[in-house]
């Protein structure tokens, strides 16, 4: 039963308060979504990137409905301020994410901003982008102890499976 809650308690509130007011918040997030669709990888304050993530993924879900759909076109028209990106959204991003049911973006932490505010920053990118990956898996070298033991084991198994001293190739 929802009596007038004091403004300081925010239990269960899902949406953050950004910018100057609700209209300003939506405009901020709209700019970020446009930038994401244009550049496919952007850095932004963590809170804004987190808010924007949900809107971006819902936009791509709308785009998957196809550009003939009236609602999808209206959504794309509202959310993308640069109108050449509407074409990119429907013709490039929607087919790219057609096989996936969700999770089109990846968000990772970044060191705090260099300016006076030391804000917590994040990088958010659309999956399948053409840039080099953000996280590179560091594989252990082939010559570490465990890898050498495993290599010996694998060679033994291969020698046991294949016949010893294979005969010459059949002509």
């Amino acid at each position, binding site marked *: 039963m929802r009596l007038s809650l004091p403004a300081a308690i925010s239990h269960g509130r899902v949406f953050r308060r950004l910018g100057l007011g609700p209209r300003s918040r939506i405009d901020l997030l709209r700019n970020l979504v446009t930038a994401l669709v244009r550049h496919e990888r952007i850095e932004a304050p963590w809170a804004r990137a987190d808010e924007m993530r949900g809107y971006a993924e819902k936009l791509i879900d709308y785009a998957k409905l196809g550009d003939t759909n009236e609602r999808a076109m209206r959504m794309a028209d509202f959310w993308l301020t640069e109108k050449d990106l509407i074409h990119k959204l429907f013709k490039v991003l929607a087919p790219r994410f057609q096989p996936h049911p969700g999770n089109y973006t990846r968000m990772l932490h970044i060191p705090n901003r260099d300016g006076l505010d030391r804000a917590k920053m994040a990088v958010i990118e659309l999956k399948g982008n053409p840039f080099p990956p953000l996280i590179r898996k560091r594989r252990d070298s082939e*010559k570490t*102890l*465990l890898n050498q033991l495993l290599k010996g084991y694998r060679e033994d198994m291969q020698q046991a499976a294949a016949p010893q001293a294979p005969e010459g190739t059949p002509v």
Partner: protein
Amino acid sequence: MAARWVGCGLWGRRQGRRFISTSTVSRLTSEEVIQMRNELFSKEKERQLSLYPRIEKIEVKYTGKSHPGSVFVMNKALSTPYNCAMHLSEWHCKRSVLALVDGEAWDMYRPLTKSCEIQFLTFKDEDPEEVNKAYWRSCAMIMACVLKRAFKDDYSVDLIRAPEVPVISGAFCYDIILDNRLNDWKPTNDNFRSLTRDAGKLIHKDLPFETLHVEAKVAREMFQHNKYKLEMIEQKASQNMEGIVMLHRFGDFVDVSEGPHIPRTSFCFQYEITAAHNLQTNQSELIRRFQGVSLPVHLKAHHIVWHKLLERSKRLVTEEKYLEAAAEHHEAKDGTEEEKTASI
């Protein structure tokens, strides 16, 4: 020597048998031998320390990747590469296994003697070959210590050597000659399990590996009861220009070794002694080769993988093909400039 007649009188009376002692080999009890070796080791260590009564400073330059160009001012013959790592960070202390001093692999606890360049080697480097060899040597030495203590005092145990097998063979080994009465004894799985548990106790005690470079004379005095060790000492002394032999000790087990070891026994995480094979030689005594496999703390394996490696390590490991491959490799290296032949 005073202790000799004490040995003759007391021990003979206590055990109730005639004590036959020759001129040099007087102490046949293993504990006395161990104690003698320990005392000689400690005495030699103190003597080497007393050669530098005043503290002299040396400059050690760090040429690794993490803090390039740092220079440490350390004490001569007192500071070790581990002390240099302590100046850098705890990560360096925990991770580094060997130190590369002027291009030569050194133990972490061996004192530095002159101004040099230092680098630290870990298990996860690009080329951890030296580290792997040192680890295998240390594991073999732990196994030797366990085997020496495992049998009762009236069964003699003669350690021969640890053959230098590469890691890819799957097991480290130690050659040993047991008492004649144990020639028909086949170690069972329970025996191996109890040996492994002994090794586990040693690992848990976290003993440091102390190293000492002594002249062949002192080493011969220490190992006078073991003719195989004496042969090895002669061989090592002849390889070296000054006739210096490298000894290592952990706890109270002293052994001749062929290269640097890991700093502490706690670097081993999974350790298991898996098999014993009888070597066919033309000697009259039966030489047994005990084998085991181990993994360090930094490279733990999942239990399924570990069990597969255990199965593989039970097979006999022979060093002939690796020696041939190494000999070919050396010839190829001497003959042509680069050409890395893949051994095995």
